């Protein structure tokens, strides 16, 4: 599903985040990446998503090297094959929940009705059935993150990139949201690359990798 080979990235000021980083994810595999603040976890996700460019190395998704794609090509790749979950929920405040969740389908060009039906179904699967016409301001943090999970999965992507998805939630809500997240991605059969500080969140993964300047090291 995902093959990262020999990735090198330095940040302005000359600091090297990682040298020759390698990473592979098979379809349906759930990998957590942890590391100190500033180690480059979010940058790794940005590089995988084609939102940032490496100094060297390659990122291949389903056999496609994203370095060979232009901006539009990378955008299409994200739109069709990747789902995102952020620490801040990033739910559009002016759209109701159904439209928020249906947005990736609408961006793919599906018609409005089909997109909204799929979004309602997705909302039901994350425990928000029948609340499609509610607006984000009416929801709690945990509920908003469930909306974000629904949006990440509604177009059935092969790869989910999650950046501290429970970082803004209290421990109980975080645990429930994480369980739902794991359940949904397993059910969808998607590969997951999760970056997190949380050992609880990392423990839900099939394997956990620690990011350091020398690369990724498997935690035992």
């Amino acid at each position, binding site marked *: 599903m995902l093959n990262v080979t020999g990735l090198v990235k330095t940040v302005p000021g000359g600091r090297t985040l990682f040298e020759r980083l390698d990473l592979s994810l098979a379809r349906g595999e759930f990998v957590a990446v942890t590391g100190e603040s500033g180690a480059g976890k979010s940058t790794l996700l940005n590089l995988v998503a084609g939102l940032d460019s490496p100094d060297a190395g390659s990122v291949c998704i389903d056999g496609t090297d994203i370095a060979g794609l232009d901006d539009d090509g990378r955008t299409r790749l994200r739109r*069709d094959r990747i789902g995102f979950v952020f620490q801040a929920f*990033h739910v*559009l405040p002016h759209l109701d929940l159904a439209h928020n969740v249906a947005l990736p389908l*609408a961006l793919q060009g*599906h*018609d409005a009705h089909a997109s909204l039906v799929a979004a309602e179904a997705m909302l039901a699967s994350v425990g928000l059935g029948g609340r499609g016409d509610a607006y984000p301001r009416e929801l709690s943090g945990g509920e908003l993150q469930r909306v974000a999970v629904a*949006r990440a999965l509604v177009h059935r992507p092969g790869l989910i990139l999650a950046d501290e998805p429970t970082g803004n939630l209290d421990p109980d809500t975080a645990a429930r949201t994480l369980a739902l997240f794991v359940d949904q991605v397993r059910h969808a059969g998607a590969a997951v690359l999760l970056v997190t500080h949380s050992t609880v969140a990392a423990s839900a993964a099939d394997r956990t990798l620690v990011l350091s300047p020398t690369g990724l090291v498997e935690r035992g």
Partner: protein
Amino acid sequence: MARPASLSVAHRWLLWSEWRAYPGRALAAVLAIALGVALGFAVHLVNASALGEFDKAMHSVSGSADLEIRSANAFGFDEMLYPRVARLPGLDVSPVVALSALVDDKIQVSLEGVDVLRAGGMGQGASDGGAEGLADFLSGRSVYLSAAALSAAGRKVGDSMTLGANGHAIQVRIAGTLPSRANTNAVTMDIAAAQWRFGMLGRLQRLEIRLAPGIGTAGAMRMIRAVLPPDAIVTDTASEAARNDGLSAAYRVNLDMLALIALLTGGFLVYSAQSLSVARRRAQFALLRVLGMQRKKVLGQVLTEASVLGVVGAGAGVALGLGLASLALNLLGGDLGGGYFHGNAPQLVFAPWAAAIFGLLGVGAAVLGSMVPALAASRILPALAIKNAGDAVDPRVRARPWRAVVCLVGALLASLLPAVGGIALFGYVAMALLLAGGVMLMPWLARALVSPLRHVPLRHVPFRLATARLWGAPSQASVALAGIVASTALTVAMAVMVTSFRGSVERWLGDVLQADVYLIAEGGRGGFDAATLERMRKVPGVAWLGVLKETPLQFDARRPAVTLLARTLTGPGGHLALMGSRITVPAGATAVWVSEPASRIYHWKPGDTLTLPLPGSPKARVAGVWRDYARQHGAIVMDEGTYARLTGDRSRTSVSVLLAPGANSDTVVAGLRSAVGPGGGGVTVSRPQDIRRQALEAFDRSFLITYLLEGIAVCVGLAGVAATIGAQVLSRIREFGMLRHVGALRGDLVRMLLIEGALLGLVGGIAGVALGVAMSQVLIHVVNPQSFHWTMDTLLPWPLLGWVIAGLAVATSGTALVVGRSVLSADAVRAVREDW
């Protein structure tokens, strides 16, 4: 399945949700465009309707003639030209005597003597008659009146009336009406009777010519020119139309340009609104990019928003413009107070092409105004923006003024270029470039003006926060100020130009109104003859009497006539205020002094020799140039004695009198009236203060529409600054929440917003005034001389400029305060935890 080509569903959702969430912002942008389009379209419609009416009036005079030979002066040409032209092949010629006349000694009419047998085909036919009626008409005992003249005189067909012209008066019967001249005050009589009864024997004013099939206009004109004397000119319908158009072209273009600048101001407001909207949605656009919206689709999203706002605004603007034009025609007349056209208010004519063009300009302004913010939205770096939803400003980035400098240099170069077809096209280009350059210079200027305040050793935290923000985010301040700087600059430019113009006119009136009393002979009276003038000179209390004869001279068939002023140039009231160099004309040569507009239009300068289109085509030397604001199409001054010698004409149209010390003005005026004749009728008496008041009233009336346009531009600008600052304050709610968290009191934040608003208003005011003064120099030294052919001295309306700056500071700080107080509630504290 997916249809990648179509993203319309997502576009629709995003557009609709944005407008539903912020209807006020969308409405403000729509209104800004609607007002700009409405002003432009209304001004255009009024001009087009007035010109249409004017053309109709001209057409009713010349009927369906293909060519016209007209006298280059008021004396007419020798009637022997008629048989010479009539003998040319392929021409059907009809002669006309044209005079200014008075009905019953009070109603001003244009009198035409026509050859009734030939004029039947010229569209001047009367509506009824008969054999007896024809005999009466041919003998000059009866005349035909237009419906307007009949109504103005309070007469009906069959009544008798007095008809006076050229110093002669006769009793005539009204034989019928003139349907072709219904809307103008016109009287038609037999040509021979008109020549005989009104002292025009042997003279004609016009020959109307129809061409036989197969005869070309150019060939016919060549043929006619070969037999034409210097005091007659031949014109075709094209040159006639050009002459009519030239009467008011510069004035109309000036109004059109003002209206377009109002539209440009609307465009700047759209720019402000869209820039803020993009800044507020920075993280949202980043999310859309992450979720798979392509860069060009983000660009398209913002431009689609602008296009829809532009289409709605332009549609509303066209409708509003139609209403405004109708209102303006009824209230101000066809020249919007300019004094170019006379008569009834013309009928409004809807112009679909003009509506489409102004509509497109409106959409164009909205789209262009959104281009910069749209590009900014599409260039957002998603990875960065999604992490940092707040302000992306980096205070270390230096403001780069080079684009502004390019625009300002371009403006300077454009202002040096000449007029195109009599229109100051490059002057307007220079103004637009100044406006664009000035707005682009704002970030640099805002930082430069605020920079010294940062070093003021003041420990007042709100002051330090306010100055730090304005210094650190000057481009955001510029966005808020773009609309108001544009409208302030426009208003200040017009105010400085009008103040300078009015001041120069006042000074000029002081120079030219040297006498104590002025007597003007009304049209049709034939002026004051030599005997009357001699009697007037002898009236007790008259210390000095100067005379004036005004008569038109046609130097160029495609231009309006120049006015010849034959006047007394000696004695205490005979002074002529000259500009620039002057020469002494050799003894024996005829000296003339040309007005500034005449000098600019015809490129006459001191020392040049002119051939005057007077009988005998005399030569004259230009001895100097004098300032004149009364006759836009040019005037020539000549000594009245020389004029009498050249033309034999001893009648004078007006008289100016200096009173002897101690003389009673009313007694002298009564004496002068008695000298004119029994009852002293047909004479208007004016005193300099009355003329001065009337002239300044006419001046203010002609600039009424300008004041209205200025007022609207300021209102649009103020509405824009209120909306923009309000939106900026609202978008900073998390910043306020953070400051409240770290211990800033609500009062501190209110004071910070107040100071920020006041500084913003001051910066905008100073920039707007400076830009406006620069633009006024283009108006004064480029647009006015090129359009209206006169110059003026710059006078700055200091109190107004002070009020503009103070008013802006109050408006901006007031808006910031009102909006700030509403958001500085508990919401601000909570907002720091919100998603966005």
